[in-house]
């Protein structure tokens, strides 16, 4: 700003920036910092006392908390793994098919497959709960059509299946996002690259694996980090389908539902803002860790091709 003394202070920049920065700072950044800070305090005799890492020691060590915490973390990791191995390959497959040239009705497919993504978790959770309910019999009837009726069990009610079922419901809801982003990436591959590949006799499947897939890897990276952040922050679907207790027997408990119970209390458990803040801090660190891994390890290694 060598020119600064020559021109008057540009107030309009402040005016343009102020509303966004003020709202963002006051409602997002300060509470986030406040939450991190609260996790270091305890409420003793109506006063907030600084206790250092005591809350975290309880979270990891005290069986009242740690059993639930590690369970929620494990479940959350499984939730994420299912998304990565089911949602993203399906998304890539659908996008690859959609982007094939001169495909008819592609706008229709695109619009239809994206429909679940715009619905709220409440609708999705309840609709699937009804469909999978043994009372109603839609799922058993359908499975009967293909002769698999004896494989049906009330998946949402069984400890060993409930979490995987909910993860798959969530995949069903969000598969539209990887599909769209990959589709966009595939469309942006220039015609010349494809033509050059065809001149060299690379077509069909091998063209996809050798030419297109490496070019869309950055998009797959972005989708993975978006999925990571979304999954470790998830709450609504589990809450709607299984309630705050994330039943059966906490088998679908993830960090979001655990945070809700710790913070607000539920039934016999009394709400504890400080422990809630400690859990939120852990979620923050996990998400931050994921984002850092992505930014510093994945993104710098993926080669971006400029056309």
């Amino acid at each position, binding site marked *: 700003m060598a020119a600064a003394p020559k021109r008057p202070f540009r107030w309009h920049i402040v005016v343009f920036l102020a509303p966004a920065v003020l*709202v963002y700072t006051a409602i997002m950044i300060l*509470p986030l910092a406040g939450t991190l800070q609260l996790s270091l305090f305890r409420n003793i005799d109506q006063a907030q006392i600084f206790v250092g890492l005591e809350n975290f020691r309880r979270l990891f060590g005290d069986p009242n908390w740690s059993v639930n915490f590690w369970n929620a973390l494990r479940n959350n990791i499984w939730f994420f793994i299912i998304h990565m191995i089911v949602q993203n390959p399906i998304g890539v497959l*659908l996008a690859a098919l959609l982007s094939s040239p001169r495909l*008819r009705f592609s706008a229709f497919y695109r619009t239809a*497959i994206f429909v679940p993504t715009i619905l709220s978790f409440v609708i999705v959770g309840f609709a699937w709960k009804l469909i999978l309910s043994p009372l109603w019999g839609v799922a058993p009837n359908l499975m009967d059509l293909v002769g698999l009726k004896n494989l049906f069990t009330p998946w949402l009610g069984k400890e060993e299946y409930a979490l995987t079922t909910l993860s798959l419901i969530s995949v069903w809801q969000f598969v539209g996002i990887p599909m*769209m982003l990959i589709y966009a990436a595939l469309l*942006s591959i220039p015609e010349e690259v494809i033509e050059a590949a065809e001149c060299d006799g690379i077509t*069909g499947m091998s063209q996809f694996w050798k030419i297109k897939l490496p070019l869309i890897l950055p998009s797959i990276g972005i989708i993975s980090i978006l999925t990571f952040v979304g999954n470790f922050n998830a709450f609504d679907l589990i809450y*709607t389908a299984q309630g705050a207790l994330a039943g059966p027997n906490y088998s679908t408990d993830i960090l979001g539902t655990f945070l809700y119970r710790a913070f607000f209390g539920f039934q016999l458990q009394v709400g504890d803002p400080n422990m809630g803040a400690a859990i939120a801090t852990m979620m923050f660190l996990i998400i931050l860790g994921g984002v850092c891994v992505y930014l510093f390890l994945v993104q710098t290694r993926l080669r971006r091709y400029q056309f």
Partner: protein
Amino acid sequence: MSTATHSLPRTIGAHAVLLTYTVIALFPVIIVIMNSFKSRAGIFGAPLTPPTPKTFDLIGYTTVIGQGDFIHYFQNSLVVTVASLFFVLLFGAMAAFALSEYRFRGNSMMGLYLALGIMIPIRLGTVAILQLMVASGLVNTLTALILVYTAQGLPLAVFILSEFMKQVSDDLKNAGRIDGLSEYTIFFRLVLPLVRPSMATVAVFTMIPIWNDLWFPLILAPSEETKTVTLGAQLFLGQFVTNWNAILAALSLAIMPVLILYVIFSRQLIRGITSGAVK
């Protein structure tokens, strides 16, 4: 393109896969809407068939409209969504303009600061947000929700809009300056109209999560007066677990407005995504 890439079996295969997935995507929605127009006997007797004159019944809808205060919840959702959207677009566009148009000390730091919120979810600050709202007496008001959603929507809005604002021609803005227009007039009269299509994209991206959110209405505004339609539907569904007609009707009522809006705006949304707005 070589003919090998669209041989007939390949095309049929592609359609088969896409059609199968389309059925998987739409089936739960269709089955819920279809059954909401049936009598109880029809729902359980033949869940997979469309309503026939014999099974057609609107009992579910009359129960929902009689029991739940859905019109009111609907208004709350509408107020919250529209107001948050307005502030996100206005404040977001202003900040994006400042960041993309002027060179000043701390410009890129400010950009990074505002972009933090794209990756770090605002939910993690809930404990302190609730304390803040309690302290300022905003609990159980729509204002609390509007403030939170404005903060939540701003980072992505600023990020996307500043990408688009960089593309507005400098000559145009400088011509305006020579004609003696103030910076504010340049922004509102010249730049805003030119980025209107990208504003629509941002609007759609901002709107969907706000309309569908359950977490903040549950925590900040659970009172009867301020319930949004998502929270209202959640509680209503919890109360009527055994009344399948009412549940299916409530679900259909919650699906239909979103679905209608989506059909109207889907081209805008899909163009927004595929034009690389979210990179």
